[in-house]
């Protein structure tokens, strides 16, 4: 909320500088987000009084004025027509530079000397009115600098008012807090005016058909008003609060809204059929045109203010076009009411219409202040719009709200806060914000809550007030005494950390992807009713699109060698369950050069075996032992010949492969992108926790190589398994060290070279004995797999 420093000072004396006040308000729970200085930059513009005015001898539309600044008399030629002799005006003297760039000089206009210029608001850039010159209130000090005479220099505080403090959505509310902080007295304006003789009950009536939605409705009536511009200071204050001035009657209702926080509405009384008010619900499907000209569909729980035959306002939210105060209005009915906060909020949401009024009603206004603010409005209307007030007010209050009394234990206060406050101090704090406090017993007090503090309804609310008023920073900082417990991460959390560490050590960067994704046809996904963007309209079921999008961003920025991963959640809807299944997935992408650009590494591209190697390292690092890769042509987004299902202990836990080029087209990416996606929850289940080491042999191993020429269709694993089957217990390890296709190997064939490690854990092997075993193995192998030995 925007709050003017000058306006505040009308209700409380402030000795603090604006920034000190801002600090104090912030520390009292009213966070001041900014303070901006309102600077007019007006020099040589002073208060003047027109002492004589006569027509210009040589021009019909000009007049010749004598303007006094107290000590001096100036002749001023003026083109405006809205002033009379005796008016106080803003006089720009020689040397003044107006905000619109006009420089004031003594000059002759049509033969007459003009020693300055009487200015309009618009010319001084202190208001919007450009019709005629600015007429000031009488009695200002003549010759005084205009900025100080009109209090134009100001500071606007932007204050964040929390939803629990609707009472502070007003200047007086904030002033009350300042009074409590600084120990000053709050000065509420005196409300006095002359009533007419005619009783209001004779002129109009109010009926409430729904006391639940409208516990209180009051009205006053002023006849014979003159609609026009409201005074300069009032318009200026409204603008300082971000409210656009409209006309004097409307401005008065808005002024009181800002002053007391009570929304008011003025109706053109002559437009109310049967000259009465009926408060009732609308019917579903009714249409109503609000003040802003919009047609609003209504609902059966929309509370409407009606006249004898039709709705004239949406209760607590916005008036109607059909009863609006206009230039022709002469009789006005002013409404001041208390509406049910929850219903106002519902209606405001349904209509998509939030106003200054609805914002306050939905948070709760001061139900006890309804009449006071009504009278304040009547007073100001009489002051600035003329007219005559009917005698008394209508006050329908079918469901009275009574002030609450709450008991507060000082012991409990201290127990919760960790303080040792004395009862006297607690009482002083609470009395400082206008609460009525009485002793109940040695420990407790009874606190009567004023009607403007609807937020205080439990003991804890009072404890908070005590803490706030004593100052949070005065509460001693302590550390709790706690039971020792087994703090730490659970196995899944530990495994997540390890997985991230292992992948990072292999060059993978961890990315953070949105959990939101574009709709896709594969899975039972969860969709968002109100997405921000079309491509963020479902909860993701896979991390792969996010990785590809990340790659796209990076390729755009010429980051071409990428290894990326994310460990994150995916979501599947489950039948008959309200909440979807959430699962952790671990996915990675690799593309570009294996070692990046380097002066010394060969510029080789990443291929399937790189990402497979990453997976093998990952599994071993996480103690997931029994894993294998099965070829599969069936994964829609992976190349059928370069993809695999990953099995652990006979459970499928993921896939790996090269992304199909058809998929990449959608991301404007080209080939050679390798990806894996693993079900991390399953990995957690298959990690092996009681790992034991294998003993080391004390005896030297003997290595023998074997190179076989086989058909392309024969796979590494076939021969590996065959060797394994044929080998005796001295075969300790089988490794492939070369895969060759080329000159010495026939087309359609390849050479696979294996190195076999013979190792005993009991003795030193001899060449002769190994040779025997190896020769036997080779001949068996050739027979078994139909291989030829490569010489």
């Amino acid at each position, binding site marked *: 909320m925007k709050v003017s420093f000058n306006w505040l000072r009308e209700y409380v004396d402030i000795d603090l500088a604006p920034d000190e006040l801002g600090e104090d308000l912030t520390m*009292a*729970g009213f*966070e001041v*987000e900014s303070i901006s200085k309102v600077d007019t930059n007006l020099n040589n513009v002073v208060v003047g009084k027109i002492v004589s005015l006569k027509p210009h001898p040589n021009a019909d539309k000009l007049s010749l004025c004598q303007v006094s600044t107290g000590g001096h008399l100036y002749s001023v030629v003026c083109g405006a027509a809205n002033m009379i002799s005796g008016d106080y005006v803003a006089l720009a003297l020689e040397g003044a530079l107006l905000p619109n760039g006009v420089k004031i000089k003594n000059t002759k206009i049509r033969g007459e000397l003009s020693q300055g210029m009487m200015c309009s608001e618009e010319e001084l850039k202190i208001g919007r009115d450009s019709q005629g010159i600015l007429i000031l209130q009488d009695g200002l000090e003549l010759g005084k600098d205009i900025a100080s005479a009109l209090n134009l220099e100001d500071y606007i505080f932007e204050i964040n008012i*929390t*939803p629990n403090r609707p009472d502070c959505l007003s200047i007086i509310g904030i002033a009350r807090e300042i009074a409590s902080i600084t120990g000053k007295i709050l000065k509420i304006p005196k409300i006095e005016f002359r009533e007419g003789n005619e009783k209001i009950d004779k002129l109009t009536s109010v009926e409430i058909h729904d006391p639940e939605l409208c516990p209180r409705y009051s009205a006053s009536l002023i006849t014979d008003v003159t609609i026009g511009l409201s005074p300069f200071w009032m318009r200026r204050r409204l603008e300082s609060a971000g409210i656009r001035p409209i006309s004097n009657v409307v401005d008065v209702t808005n002024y009181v809204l800002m002053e007391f926080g009570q929304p008011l509405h003025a109706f053109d009384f002559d437009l109310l059929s049967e000259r009465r008010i009926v408060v009732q619900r609308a019917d579903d499907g009714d249409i109503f045109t609000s003040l802003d000209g919009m047609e609003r569909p209504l609902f059966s729980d929309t509370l409407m203010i009606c006249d004898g035959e039709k709705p004239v306002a949406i209760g607590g939210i916005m008036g109607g076009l059909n009863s609006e105060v206009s230039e022709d209005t002469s009789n006005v009915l002013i409404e001041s009411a208390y509406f049910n906060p929850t219903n106002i*909020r*519902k209606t405001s*949401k349904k209509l998509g219409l939030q106003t200054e009024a609805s914002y306050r009603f939905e948070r709760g206004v001061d139900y006890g202040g309804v009449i006071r603010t009504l009278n304040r409005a009547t007073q100001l209307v009489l002051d600035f719009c003329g007219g005559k007030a009917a005698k008394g007010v209508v006050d329908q209050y079918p469901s009275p709200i009574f002030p609450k009394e709450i008991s507060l234990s000082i012991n409990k206060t201290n*127990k*919760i*806060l*960790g*303080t040792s406050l004395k009862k006297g101090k607690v009482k002083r704090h609470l009395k400082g914000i206008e609460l009525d406090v009485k002793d109940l017993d040695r420990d407790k007090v009874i606190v009567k809550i004023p009607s403007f503090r609807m937020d205080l309804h439990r003991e804890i609310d009072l*404890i908070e007030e005590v*803490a*706030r008023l004593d100052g*949070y*920073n005065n*509460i*001693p*900082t*302590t*550390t*709790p005494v*706690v039971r020792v*417990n*087994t*703090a730490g*991460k659970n196995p899944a959390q530990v495994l997540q950390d390890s997985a*991230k560490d292992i992948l*990072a050590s*292999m060059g993978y*960067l*961890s*990315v*953070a992807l*949105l*959990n*939101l994704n574009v709709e896709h046809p594969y899975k039972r996904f969860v969709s*968002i*009713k*109100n*997405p*921000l963007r079309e491509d963020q309209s479902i909860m993701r079921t896979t991390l792969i699109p996010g990785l590809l999008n990340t790659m796209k*961003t990076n390729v755009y*920025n010429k*980051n071409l*060698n990428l*290894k990326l991963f994310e460990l994150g*959640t995916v*979501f599947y809807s489950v039948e008959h369950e*309200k*909440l979807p299944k*959430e699962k952790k997935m671990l996915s990675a992408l690799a593309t570009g050069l294996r*070692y*990046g650009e*380097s*002066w*010394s590494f060969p510029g080789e591209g990443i291929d399937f075996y790189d990402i497979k190697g990453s997976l093998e390292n990952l599994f071993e690092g996480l103690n997931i032992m029994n894993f294998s890769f099965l070829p599969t042509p069936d994964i829609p987004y992976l190349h059928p010949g370069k993809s695999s299902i990953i099995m652990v202990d006979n459970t499928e836990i993921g896939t790996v492969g090269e992304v199909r080029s058809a998929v990449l087209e959608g991301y404007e990416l080209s080939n050679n992108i390798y990806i894996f996606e693993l079900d991390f929850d399953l990995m957690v289940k298959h990690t092996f926790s009681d790992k034991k080491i294998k003993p080391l042999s004390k005896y030297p191993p003997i290595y023998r190589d074997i190179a076989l020429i086989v058909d392309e269709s024969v796979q590494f694993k076939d021969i590996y398994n065959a060797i394994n089957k044929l080998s005796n217990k001295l075969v300790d390890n089988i490794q492939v060290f070369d895969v060759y296709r080329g000159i010495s190997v026939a087309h359609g064939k390849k050479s696979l070279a294996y190195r076999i490690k013979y190792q005993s854990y009991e003795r030193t092997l001899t060449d002769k004995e190994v040779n025997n075993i190896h020769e036997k193995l080779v001949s068996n192998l050739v027979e078994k797999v139909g291989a030829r030995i490569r010489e």
Partner: protein
Amino acid sequence: MKEELERLFAEALAKLKSAVEERQVAEIKTEFLGKKGKITALLRGLVNISQEQRPVMGRLTNEVKVSLEEKIKESLAGIRERKRKEDLLHESLDITLPGRRVPIGRKHPITEVCNEIIGIFLGLGFQISEGPEVELDYYNFEALNIPKDHPARDMHDTFYISDEVLLRTHTSPVQIRVMEKQSPPIQIIAPGKAFRCDSDVSHTPMFHQVEGLMVGNNITFGDLKGILTIFVHQMFGDKTRLRFRPSFFPFTEPSAEVDMQCVICRGKGCRVCSFSGWLEILGSGMVDPEVFKIVGYNPNEITGFAFGLGIERVAMLKYGINDIRMFFENDMRFLGQF
């Protein structure tokens, strides 16, 4: 003969002195000490001298032999040392060429900062809890004392799945899930993702929070201040000043916003802190009795505090990042810096 011995020794030493290669030393050794060497010949000639003189001359000749052998060794060592030095001179590399680096990966700054925060709270005896990201309205709002049609819902721009189901707007629902399952005392943190439909320089539709909850028999507002002070001091340094100011959250009362001294200007006032010298870092408060009632705790016996902090916010301050969207664009040039 003695003269002859001395002459040979001097001759050998002179030759050794001018030798520059190992080969020359070897030749000198052969010439004097080899099978047919000059000094070897003298030794052999001992048989021809008199009985009395033999032991004296024998000793003398042996001494010369040992001494010469010693000199030869020294000479060899000297030559080798010179050679090594010469070789090293020819072998030098351009050590200013960049090293051969296998690219290493990094963890995302959010992960790093989150781990750091977790580490601090683990050290204070907190345990880690988790909850679903797609959550019931009940846990996200109602059980946290934010009924339907409460103005406080305006503080949360919510993504809805259905009327009852939404993307959690904060990690606070984990508080309720934990308290429903466990009885006090409770001391947990809950790191995780949260969602709000908002997107600009300081908002992304998804962000990360760490929730904290400590509940027991005698937990006070002073304890809240104590724990959070320790946290800020560990995270941002012992000298970081902080202040607690009243605020409003429907599920805590009293509620406090925690500001710390601006880490950029150290409180002097700068653009980052809007010239206030302070940065908002945490929301916190004493658990509202209403919340205790909802989870079935007795608010007359149990007290506690809760807090929540934005991980992105901490990471932005820590690394001087000014656009929150950078975290989710995942540009390698950004990620590679952590």
